[in-house]
């Protein structure tokens, strides 16, 4: 529809009280790009990701989704806050987020989890939503688990259901926050497999991950975040094959 980048972030700052977590981050994700964000614990990866859909409110900076900038106004705490709640809701409905802890709704079946946002946010008729849900659940290999409650699924199945829940709204970008970190090692592969499929299909994704081999494999661009700044950025070959910064070199050595 428009050829604006899916996500544009300019000079993003975020402070929690006295703790400066993001210190001027700029980032553009074009349609079809898979951006992997790597970095040590506490470097601000989750915070950066959560600013994209306003789960965190930036202290300053500019964020636009598909060319539409969030309208912000000063907050009492000295930062920014959304000026228009409806705009935030409208933009959020076009972004999918996959959490480390899945965050499925336990009181709803897998099918109900997946139809929830289409029916109750987008206003899709229930039968259409169900048809679409079956399709995406089939895709992630959960076609047999429609009526199951999340508690009866393995971690890997829960995360795949959470991915299906996001696919059901056909988002223009998907945000992943360490989607495999809470999984037993033997379940990581099935989830990464699904994410790889999405990358191959040309979905726009921003992926915070500790799975370096995977990032190297699927990312079109890798961003190394350190202490609230982008310390290095480039193709996977550049970053993993020929890291420039000493910190990145050491980081790669410590995790691979």
């Amino acid at each position, binding site marked *: 529809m428009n050829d604006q980048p899916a996500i544009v972030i300019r000079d993003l700052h975020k402070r929690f009280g006295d703790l400066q977590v993001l210190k001027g981050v700029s980032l553009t994700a074009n349609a079809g790009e898979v951006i992997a964000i790597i970095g040590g614990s506490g470097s601000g990866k989750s915070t950066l990701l959560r600013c994209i859909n306003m789960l965190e409110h930036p202290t300053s900076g500019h964020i636009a989704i598909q060319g539409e900038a969030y309208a912000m106004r000063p907050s009492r705490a000295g930062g920014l806050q959304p000026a228009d709640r409806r705009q935030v*809701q*409208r933009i*959020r409905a*076009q972004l999918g987020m996959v959490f480390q802890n899945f*965050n*499925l709704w336990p*009181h709803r079946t897998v099918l109900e989890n997946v139809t929830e946002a289409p029916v*109750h946010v987008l206003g899709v008729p229930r039968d259409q939503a169900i048809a679409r849900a079956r399709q995406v659940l089939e895709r992630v290999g959960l076609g047999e688990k429609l009526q199951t409650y999340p508690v009866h699924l393995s971690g890997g199945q829960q995360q795949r259901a959470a991915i299906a829940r996001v696919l059901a709204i056909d988002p223009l970008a998907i945000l992943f926050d360490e989607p495999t970190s809470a999984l037993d090692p033997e379940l990581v592969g099935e989830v990464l497999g699904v994410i790889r499929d999405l990358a191959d299909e040309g979905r726009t994704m921003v992926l915070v991950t500790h799975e370096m081999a995977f990032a190297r494999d699927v990312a079109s661009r890798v961003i190394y975040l350190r202490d609230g700044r982008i310390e290095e950025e480039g193709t996977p070959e550049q970053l993993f094959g020929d890291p420039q910064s000493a910190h990145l070199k050491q980081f790669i050595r410590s995790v691979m």
Partner: protein
Amino acid sequence: MFQSIDFSLLALTAPGWGGALLNGFLRSIQLAAGGYAVGIIIGILGASAKLYGGLVLRDLAEIYTMVIRAVPELVLMLLFYYVGTDLISRAAQAMGFTGFDIDGLLAGIIVIGLVQGGYATEVIRGAIKAVPHGQIEAAQAFGMSPVTVMRRVTIPAMTPHAMPGMANLWMIATKDTALLAVIGFSELTQVTRQAASATRAYFLFFLSAAALYLLLTLLSNVVLRWYETRARRGMIAAR
């Protein structure tokens, strides 16, 4: 001892008092159910005010629950009833309505609801805090409005945590209806008193009333247990 009891006094039609007793019982159930429902609504609003409200709302909710919990229920009911009806009829007069009559049942329901709401606020606040925040965040991330998040996620997710406390409140609501006898509501206790003093069969009538209250409690337990099982769907079975 039972030979001396004249059970014909319980006949449904006069001169028996059975019909009157059942009517009183029905009225008690209406008062309890209505008051309980009002209490739940106030509880959800009060809990939201305490958890998500600004300074003013939070303080108001705090004062409300403190007053409800500190003052004896009978005093609260008398206060709400007499002050409330007085204020409403004055307001009605000021607006030019004359002969304005406040519906007794509705007034009773609101009085019980206001008391219940204070306790329900605390129960529901605790239950909402027990819901993992990630579930609410996931709903927000999909662009749900605050009301939709409340309706579709927070309330169903907190219900299992609220059930024990809310079941308890229902028991209290059924018994609180008896306090309305003081104001003159013809609910079960009031009718029982009338029947007993008219016939001097105190033992028979108060025992009958107790049996009816007990029956209500037993039936309620069945319904509440069924509902709790339903609300806990998708949760690992406790115990």
